């Protein structure tokens, strides 16, 4: 390989994982080249919108002074169980959210990623945009030497590569670390819209005291036609983020179009009033890898580390991904620094990366929920059934004036059994517990 | 230029653009506007005059008189036989320095755009390009030139307070073609010498590769226009079918040209052509001001748009709120039935 550019480390992809890795290595003194195919970092990226700054703080301790473009702190969060005509809300609001050292913030990727990448540039990272890495260049023994890009004179050489290419992990696959494309049962498709609304209007509708309060809601049940999947509504500074996500397999089997599901969700009688008068600022679709702990790609190769969505580091149960990505990126960066110190870039040495991840929440959490997708996949009716039940039960419960309470309770139990046999219910509970316990 | 000019009366000048002895009609349109401006200024006291550069063009002065010029400055010289920026600009600028017109109007053609800015720079004065309206500011008694401003749905009126002449360019067909006076109307021809030698000129025309037959959108009677609502190049096929039935020409908005679906000579609007057909069908066109200034003077505008709030409905005489992919095929169908019933 006669490279057109040489550096100490190459990072592919300027998402949360890649930027965290790049900053970590640059701070450790390496010459880092971060390559992103988008016009700007974040230009092509999309997520729901809740960021957990604990992971950010470990990459940039003084991040707060650098004015990250957060939308609103999350001061209230929880779940809506939506039936076709009603909702049971389980929301938690606390004054402690405002004082807790690590909270959560809503954010928009186009702005956040650009800011995050700018921090990398300030740390000395060479950021190359509008450039796609097309291939990992390897020697005869399979060791990574660098990358080829889609630019003329586009070969870049480095002894170590961090691949943070996101869910569409073509490079990871080309290295044989991931086994081909994800089967549709392990990947969710999410569509999202950002709807502009004046701040005061958002605050009035969601009961927020001001710009320093925000809501994050995850929604189950009718939002996804009772199928496994979730919808979400998050408040941004002057907009509402709203979206739905379903396993690709469900979309295929039921021949559903994600935008139609979102349109249907937006028109739901409970949801609609929140959105009235809002105009669409942007919309997009994105995949979420949900294959879980047991089907993750290998995380290391000779001269290569994989981080973030590219390695399926998503905790679908808690809709966490960006924080796992940042933490993994940082650990990949730390490992690359050690490798440089030792001059050893072999897969055997780089395995230290996996060990770090195992000791952190990243792999611990992923391990715990390893059966969640399977559970939902094998019990697709479960969400719709229980959500509808909750709503009907609530209606009976709250409108049962004049009826003996014991009779009412009996009716409610009858409602449940009418939907699912006793054994069915017991079975669901067992599986759910296993899904949650790992 | 030996004559000592009489600077008494204020003058409005119009540049007469000609190619091989053919005057570009925009020059007559401008003379019409100049006459209106003169009367808005102070009736008879202001002179409307024409500047005619070229070689062997003296006979065109008679036409200029018929469109209202009282005097024609004839700049005849072999170096002006074909348009070139430098000799044309020098000729007009020197003349303007001598006779100090208040206002100088030029057509916003390829030639006019090339020339006007050079003259404005030589005279260190202001130039408002592509105006859609020219009036006299009632208080300041100076030219108020109106043009669409950048991007927004806004028009801006631009003044040139301190510098003279006040210069403006106007696209062909934006202004109405005035009635010509009967033959025999006369005026004064003032032949002016141009002191330039071919050897001093830096640019020479080697040859002209004639263009293909030009699309005469400007003078079409029926125009069937489409915008982004067409959805793709296929939509243009539909448009062409309708245009063929109506004996009309297809026109488009700028995004379609930018997308490369059709050549730029089909574009209507501020940066395209200005049209005045009897019928203008606007399908899937939102009606941005840059488009409207090119077609707002059509006799009858029929808009088809599925968005009832589309601004195009504000200027359409007749509006259909509906999907053009349904409405146009139905139009074609009914037209065909109509025509079939027509011919026995």
């Amino acid at each position, binding site marked *: 390989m006669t490279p*057109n550019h040489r550096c100490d480390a190459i990072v592919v992809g300027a998402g949360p994982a890649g930027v965290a890795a790049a900053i970590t290595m640059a701070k450790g003194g390496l010459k880092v080249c971060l390559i992103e195919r988008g016009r700007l970092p974040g230009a092509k990226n999309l997520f729901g919108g809740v960021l957990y700054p604990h992971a950010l703080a470990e990459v940039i301790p003084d991040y707060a002074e650098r004015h990250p473009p957060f939308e609103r702190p999350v001061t209230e969060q929880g779940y809506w169980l939506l039936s076709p005509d009603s909702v049971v809300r389980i929301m938690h609001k606390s004054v402690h959210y405002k004082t807790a050292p690590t909270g959560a913030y809503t954010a928009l990727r186009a702005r956040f990623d650009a800011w995050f990448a700018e921090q990398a540039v300030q740390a000395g990272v060479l950021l*190359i945009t509008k450039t796609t890495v097309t291939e990992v260049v390897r020697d005869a023994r399979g060791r990574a030497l660098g990358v080829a890009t889609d*630019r003329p004179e586009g070969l870049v050489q480095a002894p170590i590569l961090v691949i943070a290419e996101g869910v569409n992990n073509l490079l990871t696959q080309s290295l044989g670390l991931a086994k081909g494309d994800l089967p549709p049962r392990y990947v969710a498709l999410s569509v999202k819209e950002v709807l502009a609304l004046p701040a005061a209007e958002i605050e009035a509708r969601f009961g927020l005291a001001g710009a320093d309060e925000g809501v994050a809601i995850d929604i189950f049940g009718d939002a996804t036609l009772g199928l496994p999947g979730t919808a979400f509504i998050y408040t941004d500074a002057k907009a509402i983020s709203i979206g739905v996500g379903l396993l690709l397999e469900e979309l295929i089997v039921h021949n559903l179009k994600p935008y139609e599901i979102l349109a249907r969700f937006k028109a739901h009688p409970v949801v609609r009033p929140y959105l009235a008068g809002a105009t669409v600022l942007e919309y997009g679709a994105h995949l979420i890898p949900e294959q879980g702990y047991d089907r993750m790609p290998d995380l290391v190769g000779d001269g290569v580390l994989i981080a973030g969505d590219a390695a399926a580091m998503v905790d679908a149960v808690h809709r966490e991904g960006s924080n796992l990505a940042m933490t993994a990126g940082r650990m990949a960066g730390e490992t690359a620094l050690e490798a440089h110190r030792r001059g050893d870039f072999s897969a055997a040495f780089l395995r230290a990366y996996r060990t770090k991840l195992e000791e952190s929440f990243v792999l611990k959490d992923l391990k715990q929920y390893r059966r969640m997708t399977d559970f939902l996949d094998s019990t697709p009716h479960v969400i719709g059934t229980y959500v509808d039940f909750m709503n009907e039960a609530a209606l009976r419960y709250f409108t049962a004036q004049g009826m003996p309470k014991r009779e009412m309770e009996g009716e409610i139990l009858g409602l449940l059994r009418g939907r699912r046999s006793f054994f069915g219910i017991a079975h669901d509970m067992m599986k759910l517990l296993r899904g949650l316990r790992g | 230029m030996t004559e000592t000019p009489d600077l008494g009366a204020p003058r409005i000048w119009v540049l007469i653009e000609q190619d091989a002895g053919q005057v570009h009609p925009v020059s007559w349109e401008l003379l019409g506007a100049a006459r209106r401006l003169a009367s808005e200024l102070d009736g008879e006291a202001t002179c409307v005059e024409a500047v005619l550069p070229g070689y062997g063009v003296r006979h065109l002065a008679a036409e200029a008189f018929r469109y209202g010029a009282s005097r024609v400055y004839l700049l005849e010289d072999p170096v002006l036989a074909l348009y070139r920026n430098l000799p044309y600009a020098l000729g007009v600028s020197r003349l303007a320095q001598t006779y100090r017109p208040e206002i100088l109007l030029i057509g916003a053609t390829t030639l006019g755009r*090339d020339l006007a800015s050079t003259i404005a720079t030589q005279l260190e004065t*202001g130039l408002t390009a*592509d105006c859609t309206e020219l009036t006299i500011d009632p208080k300041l008694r100076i030219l108020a030139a109106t043009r669409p401003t*950048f991007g927004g749905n806004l028009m801006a*009126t631009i003044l040139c307070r301190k510098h003279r002449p006040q210069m403006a360019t106007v696209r062909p067909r934006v202004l109405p073609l005035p009635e010509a006076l009967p033959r025999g109307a006369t005026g004064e021809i003032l032949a002016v010498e141009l002191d330039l030698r071919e050897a001093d000129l830096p640019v020479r025309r080697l040859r002209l590769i004639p263009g293909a037959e030009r699309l005469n959108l400007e003078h079409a009677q029926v125009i069937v226009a489409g915008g982004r609502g067409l959805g793709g190049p296929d939509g243009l096929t539909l448009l062409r079918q309708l245009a063929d039935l109506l004996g009309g020409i297809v026109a488009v908005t700028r*995004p379609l040209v930018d997308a490369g679906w059709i050549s730029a000579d089909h574009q209507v609007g501020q940066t395209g052509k200005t049209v005045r057909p009897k*019928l203008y069908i606007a399908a899937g066109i939102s009606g941005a001001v840059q488009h409207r200034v090119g077609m707002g003077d059509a006799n009858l505008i029929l808009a088809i748009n599925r968005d009832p709030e589309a601004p195009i409905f504000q200027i359409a005489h007749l509006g259909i709120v509906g999907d053009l992919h349904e409405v146009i095929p139905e139009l074609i169908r009914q037209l065909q039935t109509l025509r079939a019933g027509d011919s026995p």
Partner: protein
Amino acid sequence: MHTIVAIKQVPDTTHVRIDPETGTLIREGVPAVINPYDRHALEMAIRLKERFGGTVTVLTMGPPKAAEALVECVEQGADRAILLSDRKFGGADTLATAYVIAHAIAAIQVEDPADLLLFGKQAIDGDTAQVGPGVATRLAVPLITYAMRIESLDPATRTAIIHRRIEQGIEVLETTLPALLTVEKEIATIARAPLPNLVRAAHYRPETWDATTPVPFDPARIGIKGSATIVSKAFTPPRKEPGERMSVAESGLTRVVGQALQRLVTAGVLSSAPATAPRDESNA
């Protein structure tokens, strides 16, 4: 061979949206791009450099943010980039803009005389097409507008043959050099920039010139002061009385189209007037 290219950063009009309520432009979030014609001008300059060697200088007058556009020019292959930025330059019309650019080009040429000056045929934010001719005139170099091809160029004899689009066809002109061309997109197709250019651009900081350093500009000829024209008022075009409107959803397709055709017939705009009106088949 030294080519100077003037570029302008403009809002990407393909992203321009109109506020439906106020009818005004929403500028927020509209990405800024290099004026498309200018990118082709720059590409032409790069081609000439590939062929004859030499350098390409780009310059722009604009706010500090316009430095981004210059960095993009370096990505594309420019060697040197100059940002003319000063509050005092603000509010300039084309007369004042052309003065600043011409004066800057003259200053650049003191050290490094140019063989060619390239401009876009117009900037898509205002479409005036005046700045190029204005600069050529001030610098007293030959002007060729709407240039679409350089047939030949010889730095030794200092002549070039240029194709220019005019209404009658394509005019082939011979000019002496240096000359100023304002170009159409066909002048050069934009090639994908090689990676080393991007690496260089990542570290490149354009030179910034203000109204006094490194060259003083005449304060009376820049910005608002140096402008001959002023915008006296801006207004939304007066709304006409809206015409008749019909809705397919309300009245049915057949009926609506039938009625519209009827109107066209009455107005006499259809070439052949039918004897009978179309039958109304709609039952809506």
